[in-house]
């Protein structure tokens, strides 16, 4: 047996946008074991629920993540609405769905850029982020915020999108689709990228399922789980099938996200075509008493906001289970047996959001 050494990876590393630390146990250049550590950006968000009333906490819930912030706010609101028995107007549900899918577009494009950067393709990184700007422009024009939208509230949404703007968005999606086609063709068919990603960081279907993998990590390994299929917001009214790949390697996870961009565009088209006229919110009276595990599909996978109220305006508990947290054990499995040089690509392939994971 070769001599074992431990190489620390992170929390500061060129490919890591956020601080994750891995102790890599190596035999020569091969990783034989991995000990993950987080804890560098814990902000105590869940504790703040004891000091912010349940309506104001939406703003905090949104700030759990700087990428999929809208979906955090929506999932939290959905939990409170369920506890309080609030019937959200249809138009608000469609608007939530539209903004959620724009958030997915922006998140996946951001990730594609970071991923390209992780294997040294700078130009591809810049192209992905250039297209992402178009998506952020729409989010800013319709909500007032590029990254933190503040558009969701308990009982509905704060802002409307007029029919003219919806038509403009519909048209704009055509341009975004064409640009994404060019971009994803490089990711999926360029021989050097395929060579870099294929058979790297393989996670079997069984491991993905039993280790708790979610989102593109699970679907890249053939696990067909997509919480949008539960029909929350307006997803129950839209036609779509989860994007699933079976190879379980970094290329498969990249392919899932690339194909999901097109699925999101299709869903936004459908939602724009079907959005009904009507009110944006309902008046909320009283305070939540009861509990609910509100689930949704973030760009990185299944998100849970558990809320528990005791009839006062302050919740007893908010527990946020983010997809990155549950994708850490599968990451450990993927890394065991890989080459040291593949570690950055594999880590990036789960789309880690550590700010989210630590709350």
């Amino acid at each position, binding site marked *: 047996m070769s001599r074992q050494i431990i190489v620390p990876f992170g929390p500061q590393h060129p490919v890591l946008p956020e601080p994750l630390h891995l102790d890599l146990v190596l035999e020569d250049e091969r990783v034989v074991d991995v000990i993950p*550590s987080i804890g560098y950006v814990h902000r105590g968000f*869940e*504790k703040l629920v004891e000091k912010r009333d349940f309506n104001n906490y939406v703003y905090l819930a949104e700030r759990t993540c700087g990428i999929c912030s809208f979906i955090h706010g929506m999932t939290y609101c959905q939990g409170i609405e369920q506890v309080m028995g609030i019937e959200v107007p249809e138009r608000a549900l469609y608007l939530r769905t539209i903004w959620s899918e724009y958030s997915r577009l922006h998140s996946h494009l951001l990730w594609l850029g970071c991923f390209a950067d992780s294997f040294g393709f700078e130009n591809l990184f810049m192209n992905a982020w250039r297209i992402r700007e178009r998506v952020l422009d729409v989010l800013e024009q319709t909500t007032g915020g590029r990254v933190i939208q503040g558009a969701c509230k308990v009982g509905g949404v704060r802002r409307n999108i007029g029919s003219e703007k919806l038509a403009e968005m519909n048209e704009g999606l055509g341009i975004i689709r064409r640009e994404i086609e060019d971009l994803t063709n490089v990711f999926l068919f360029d021989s050097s990228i395929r060579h870099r990603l294929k058979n790297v960081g393989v996670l079997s279907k069984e491991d993905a399922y*039993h280790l708790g993998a979610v989102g593109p990590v699970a679907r890249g390994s053939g696990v067909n789980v997509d919480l949008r299929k539960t029909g929350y917001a307006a997803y129950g009214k839209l036609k779509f099938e989860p994007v699933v790949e079976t190879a379980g390697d970094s290329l498969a996870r990249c392919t899932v996200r690339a194909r999901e961009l097109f699925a999101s565009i299709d869903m936004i088209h459908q939602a724009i075509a079907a959005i009904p006229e009507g009110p944006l919110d309902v008046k909320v009276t009283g305070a939540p008493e009861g*509990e609910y*595990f509100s689930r949704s599909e973030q760009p990185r996978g299944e998100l849970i906001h*558990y809320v528990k109220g005791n009839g006062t305006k302050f919740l*007893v508990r908010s527990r946020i*289970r983010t997809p990155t947290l549950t994708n*850490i054990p599968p990451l450990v499995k993927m890394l065991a047996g890989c080459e040291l040089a593949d570690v950055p690509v594999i880590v990036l392939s789960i789309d880690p959001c550590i700010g989210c994971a630590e709350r």
Partner: protein
Amino acid sequence: MTIENQSTTPVEIGKLIGVVEEFRNQGYRLVQIGCTATGDLYEINYSFDKDYTFRNIRVTVTPDTEIPSITGMYWGAFIYENEMHDLFGVNVRGMNIDFKGTLIRTSVKNPFGIAAGKGEKQ
């Protein structure tokens, strides 16, 4: 809006491993483990999912109760069990990866713990 039906079943601590094993054998995936401080007790929720059927079991324990780890059935559960230990001070016995309180570093020890809730530093 479609909202899923959710069920929560109380389970005695002594039967936890058996019940979790049954979920594993039935093909459920572990969704999360979460802890809530209620009065002088902790409610620990273990959530599972299979084909979008969400099921939750709950053990209610005193702060000094030692919880058996479920990492023997669900290897990835170490992330939740360590989190529960670091934030609440819950003792979990037999974890496959035990960070011994260093997974989540906080300025206040066990900030969600019952003693911390009463204004005492643990």
